[in-house]
């Protein structure tokens, strides 16, 4: 069984790697070196290697990725805390639900980027405004998933726990919350993608560093390699974050992970 699992992992690695390699080869063939409209993978690779140690503007590529990640980190953690608490309040209290749900439904469709002008007006042009925009982007999926999970907890599980003597006041922590952890995790993954997309938007609107800034400056200087390198950093970082989330899910809620 274990050997079969290892084989599947190798197959994934080989086929996935081959697909990426093929994509890069086709890309290299299709794009003319030095083009004003796109950069080749070799040009992008060269740009990234060069700027791992030398600066693009105020810092290296690591520095820009670090800035973006730190912004995502702050906005995301705040969104997780507020979103989960709000969703649980709405799901457990009828009064909270009646008051807060319509308000949430009204604000939910507004894209995070639409908040940029207000964020700048309220929080200035520095970090707080970016945290706020990222917060908005990540907040919605946290609320949605947690709320949906909490209101859909199988009543039979609660009944079974009550019948076995679980004190009613502890049902929330013993049954409801553990039951919705997988949904919170699913929301956390969507929220992370949203947060990562939002930080780029926020940095492109107003920033002096970060991956979004790198792309914007590349556009201003018509530097295709810089633009596509910024995009590549977004892609690779997003890929690594998604892998980290999958790893966390597998280890923290292993009871919910089926052999795939």
């Amino acid at each position, binding site marked *: 069984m274990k050997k079969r699992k290892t084989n599947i992992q190798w197959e994934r690695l080989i086929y996935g790697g081959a697909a990426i390699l093929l994509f890069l080869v086709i890309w290299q063939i299709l794009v003319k070196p030095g083009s004003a409209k796109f950069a080749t993978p070799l040009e992008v690779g060269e740009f990234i290697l060069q700027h791992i140690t030398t600066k693009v503007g105020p810092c290296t590529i690591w520095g820009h990725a670090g800035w973006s990640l730190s912004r995502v980190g702050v906005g995301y953690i705040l969104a997780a805390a507020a979103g989960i608490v709000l969703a649980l309040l709405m799901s457990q209290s009828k009064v909270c639900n009646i008051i807060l749900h319509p308000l949430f439904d009204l604000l939910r469709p507004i894209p995070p980027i639409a908040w940029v002008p207000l964020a700048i007006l309220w929080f200035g042009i520095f970090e707080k405004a970016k945290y706020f925009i990222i917060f908005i982007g990540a907040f919605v999926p946290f609320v949605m998933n947690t709320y949906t999970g909490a209101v859909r907890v199988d009543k*039979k*599980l609660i009944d*079974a726990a009550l019948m076995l003597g679980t004190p009613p006041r502890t049902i929330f922590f013993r049954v409801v919350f553990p039951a919705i952890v997988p949904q919170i995790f699913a929301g956390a993954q969507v929220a992370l993608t949203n947060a990562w997309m939002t930080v780029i938007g926020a940095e492109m609107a107003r920033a002096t560093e970060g991956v979004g800034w790198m792309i914007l400056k590349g556009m201003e200087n018509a530097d295709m390699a810089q633009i596509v390198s910024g995009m590549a950093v977004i892609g690779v970082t997003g890929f690594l974050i998604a892998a980290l989330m999958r790893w966390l899910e597998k280890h923290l809620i292993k009871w919910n992970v089926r052999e795939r």
Partner: protein
Amino acid sequence: MCEQIKVQVKNLTKSYGELLVLDNVSFEVKKGEFLCIVGPTGCGKTTFLNSLTKLHDIDSGEILLDSVPVNLKKQSIAYIFQENSVLSWRTVAENVALGLEFKKKELALTKNEIKKKVRDALSIVGLLKFENYYPNQLSASMLQRVVIARAFVIAPELLLMDEPYGQLDINLRFRLEDEVVKICKQFNTTVIFITHNLEEAVYVGDRILILTNKPSKIKEELENPLPRPRDVTSSEFIKLREYVTDQIRWW
């Protein structure tokens, strides 16, 4: 069998909105008795069990356990639901231990004693080697066996079973029917068992209570005098099963 009355249901009436489900139902269950309730689908069998355990409110009437109104905190009642009610984030052993966790003070149980009781219960349902598995690694029939073990481990004074074997294959069903009856008789547990399966009702029940279609009333209460272990191929068994079938033929 002791003739002490364990459960008294007096003039129980329950409706959902304007739909009357249970209409003035009254009966008694003796201590240690295995009572089977049979009736057509949707006649209110599950509603009755939910009313008994206060999972549903009743419109009128009274349900007494040992001559006092049911109190889940003080009385030990186990309920095996028709649907899977295993907690997916707990291992098999942790699921079975759930009821004991809240009774360990009351019963003065140590961790090791809980572990032993859990292992004994798992051994009865044939799941001992799966004690550290999570529910998503088990089949539907194994999950139902976890629920049965979880119910028995608390040594309930009243056991409610709502079509517990519906998801099990026939071999396992036969085995568990025998096991459950054996344990109930051993510990003198009072059982109210709901089933659609008339053969099952005749096989396990000391008494069979036949409900009418909605709004449910009691059509007949039938003593089952067949000696145990029962032989489903014996002429007495077949005769009784056919009699029960005749009583419900008009459903």
